[in-house]
């Protein structure tokens, strides 16, 4: 019998605590002490999850985290479609992140949009020795010549840039001037900065503030303003997420003036300070710019969650509460419109998924935001953790999302995650590409919860139907029954982690 079938909370907590002690035993003493602070069993009523977070990863443990460059180029800036983002430094960073994040967009790639291209300065030894500023300037000239419809350039710094003392700001300023005030944004997102992707988000947000907002000054809005103008902040349009969200906001009577940054454009970035409300999905990666716009332009922001009908309903009402009755009624109309669809989806999939246990390990908002969607399908999240969360993420998680006794693991190591899954034997693991095949080998159903496993969208009502279908096809695929070899003695546990 699966250990997770235990319903007694006290027993679950005890098991989870024992499990934490067990995984810590593998480490040298100093490491065990450090890792202990990142692992906990959630206690109901606590204001946070009781783990330390946003701290340096420990060398050699196989952290799943990425770097600041990944946070800036890969997450925040990369999807802005009509700008050209230079991966500035050696070839690898841009190559490995090339078109890998499925930030959908509409445009003629290579002509007026550039998201799924890899522009790099491809640093050679001489660039390291003599500096890359001249090369960078020349790159900008070549971009202007070959891609005349580009609306701006960003310089996404890779590790060497900050180490060799290049002045990318000076180059950017000079070239901006030369090209008639063109938006050129130097971003100091070298991979060694900070402890994860997270600082890259922050640096990228600050770069928008300093090099887009501050540059445009008091320019009037380029569009006709209405009292219902909102901007979607922190949706990267993975598999079309922002589109299946936008349609709901429009249906309730709002006007979406900008998308940050999935399918976004520089014009939309510049339009945002004229919005009436910023609606923030990925708090982790874009709270900084939302706070800035609140302080500088007086634009309120509101967090929302478009995973699963319960959270969508709650979020639509929360967003509507910032507006007049017309919008409030619009929100109710949207909820009513999609109710039959949601009932049909749940009627179809809940019987197949009810009671199934899920363990998550993801980045951004998902370790907490998707819990409601699983619960809408009768599933239970028994473990979750953030790749690069901060304390405010764990506070939100503890206060709104996780249940008593949930296993919490911050910046989990490969070893810990495998052991946790081996012992808890969940019915589904939701994590990333690096984890996917580990757990599938163990015979555990898996969905990538960064890329939606090449499916999606998962946001909004349309997305929930896809989410439900995908979770069903992962868990109820016939393949998992075939994993054990029939003529071999039945093992006590199916999911065996590497020793």
């Amino acid at each position, binding site marked *: 019998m699966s250990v997770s079938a235990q319903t007694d909370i006290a027993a679950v907590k005890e098991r989870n605590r024992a499990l934490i002690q067990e995984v810590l035993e593998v480490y040298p003493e100093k490491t065990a002490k450090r890792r202990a602070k990142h692992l906990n069993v959630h206690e109901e009523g606590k204001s946070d999850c009781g783990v330390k977070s946003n701290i340096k990863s420990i060398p050699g443990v196989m*952290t799943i985290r990425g770097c600041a460059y990944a946070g800036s180029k890969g997450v925040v800036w990369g999807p802005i479609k009509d700008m050209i983002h230079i991966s500035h*430094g050696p070839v690898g960073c841009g190559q490995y992140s090339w078109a890998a994040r499925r930030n959908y967009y509409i445009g003629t790639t290579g002509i007026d949009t550039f998201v799924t291209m890899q522009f790099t300065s491809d640093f050679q030894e001489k660039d390291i020795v003599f500096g890359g500023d001249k090369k960078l300037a020349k790159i900008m000239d070549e971009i202007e010549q070959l891609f005349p419809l580009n609306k701006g350039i960003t310089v996404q710094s890779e590790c060497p840039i900050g180490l060799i003392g290049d002045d990318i700001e000076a180059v950017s300023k000079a070239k901006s001037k030369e090209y008639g005030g063109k938006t050129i944004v130097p971003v100091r997102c070298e991979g060694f900065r900070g402890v994860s992707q997270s600082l890259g988000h922050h640096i990228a947000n600050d770069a928008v503030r300093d090099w887009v907002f501050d540059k445009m000054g008091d320019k009037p809005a380029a569009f006709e303003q209405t009292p219902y103008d909102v901007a979607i902040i922190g949706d990267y349009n993975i598999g079309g997420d922002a589109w299946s969200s936008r349609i709901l906001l429009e249906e309730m009577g709002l006007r979406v003036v900008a998308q940050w940054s999935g399918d976004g454009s520089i014009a939309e970035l510049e339009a945002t300070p004229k919005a009436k409300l910023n609606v923030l999905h990925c708090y982790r990666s874009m709270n900084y710019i939302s706070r800035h716009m609140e302080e500088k332009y007086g634009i309120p922001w509101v967090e929302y969650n478009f995973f699963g009908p319960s959270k969508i309903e709650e979020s639509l009402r929360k967003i509507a509460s910032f507006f007049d009755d017309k919008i409030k009624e619009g929100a109710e109309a949207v909820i009513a419109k999609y109710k039959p669809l949601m009932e049909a989806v749940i009627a179809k999939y809940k019987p197949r998924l009810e009671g199934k246990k899920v363990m998550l390990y993801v980045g951004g908002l998902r370790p907490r935001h998707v819990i409601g969607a699983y619960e809408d399908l009768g599933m239970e999240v028994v473990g979750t953790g953030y790749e690069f969360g901060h304390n405010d993420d764990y506070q939100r998680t503890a206060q709104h999302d996780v249940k008593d006794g949930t296993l919490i693991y911050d910046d989990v190591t490969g070893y810990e995650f495998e052991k946790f899954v081996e012992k808890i034997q969940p019915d589904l693991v939701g994590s990333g590409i690096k984890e996917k095949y580990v757990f599938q*080998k163990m015979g555990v159903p898996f969905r990538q919860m960064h890329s939606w496993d090449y499916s999606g969208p998962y946001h909004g009502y349309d997305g929930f139907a896809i989410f439900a279908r995908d979770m069903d096809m992962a868990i109820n695929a016939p393949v998992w029954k075939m994993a054990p070899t029939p003529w071999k003695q039945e093992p006590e546990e199916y999911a065996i982690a590497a020793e």
Partner: protein
Amino acid sequence: MPQNANQVLDHFELFRGPEYQDMLARKKAEFENHVGDDKVAEVREWAKTEEYKDLNFAREALTINPAKACQPLGAVFVAVGFEQTIPFVHGSQGCVAYYRSHFSRHFKEPTSCVSSSMTEDAAVFGGLNNMIDGLANTYSMYKPKMIAVSTTCMAEVIGDDLNAFIKTAKEKGSVPAEYDVPFAHTPAFVGSHVTGYDNAMKGVLEHFWDGKAGTVDKLVRVPNGKINFLGGFDGYTVGNLREIKRIFDLMKVEYTILGDTSDVWDTPTDGEFRMYDGGTTLEDAANAVHARATISMQEYCTEKTLPWIAGHGQETVAFNHPVGVEGTDRFIMEVARLAGVEIPDELARERGRLVDAIADSNAHIHGKKFAIYGDPDLCYGLAQFLMELGAEPTHVLATNGNKAWEKKMQALFDSSPFGTNCKVYPGKDLWHMRSLLFTDPVDFLIGNTYGKYLERDTGTPLIRIGFPIFDRHHKHRYPVWGYQGGLNVLVTILDRIFEHIDATTNVPSKTDYSYDIIR
């Protein structure tokens, strides 16, 4: 409302309905400050011209859509091919997340690799403490038999000295003094992933053969009759190495595969995760010094390793990713010569079957023009095979190809009438290739997954051969080496050609007279 619980629409169809199309059109019209479709069409056409091509080829600083990765990727490739070995990459941790993702997306397999997770303080003070802690943690947690260290560009820029760091870490007790920690400096700003393969492979062999960084005596070579085999950085490593082993066994050759990744990137789904599986044993890696000869399947992956091995008294032979009849002939005959064995009749029959298949099918390939891009050796092997098939490898491009490769490719073209109008492009990228496909079109393009963008933009049908292949599954399980491998490549090319013919002859009453049932 397009969505439906009974037939769930995902991104493939959901957004094509009027609700979303309308929404997207309004977004563009009202908020994107779009330049207008006419202007886009104008620039799009201009980008197809000779004028644009000239500007494109005049580029000196900007690289667009390169077909190469960086050195540490190759080092990780090498490390996972040794028994119970963990690649340990010293430098920023994000790099390791990238390598692991990249390999997993290609092989659809886990790739275990650790980082020393250096951050700002390490940038200032050096990464020694990261090495000390990192080795201790990896050793305790994952119980590897060997930890193979390489570097990211960060560690290289600040000048961390791996030899000294590993020595110090051992003194501090991170791992036992006699524990195997081979290393290689793999700066990302020199060469590419094939260079990283070269440096890392040399690093491992140097460790075992030349006295483990001065801690033991160098091995004294006592020649035996064995053959060492180096596959090079190879996206088909799983299928290829299994095929090579089968061929060697058929030939009764005693051999050592150096860096055997065929099991670790092809583990079963049976309820157990194998972090390690197969691989060259450390004992075999050490004993490889005694071999009679070493074969490299990819000359440009072993530019340093092979001469270094030759310096140890072995005969060395390099190939350029042989594909097809003549390339495989030369490979088989060299193996037989080096090992002093007869070539079994079974291989002659396999050869005959490949020739038979070519005879059956070459009419569909003969005279067709191809563009090829990829790693230098793969380009060479494929170009050679295409010319055997009577095709013309019109454009052959390797972003990581050097001058020596250029010369060698040209010599290959010069060796055959089918090479007369062919040109080699070292150091160019896929944006250059885009221009070539517009100004000097070909019938088919051969390349990795990223070639699909060229297929979309230029209409040149793509045949996926190379690394990485992300959007087709399981290709790496099938060999491209040996006569069987040649057959696989032939079928891959033919399938795409036939699909293309069918897709362009299927309009009823217009073109479907050619929609033949027999081809």
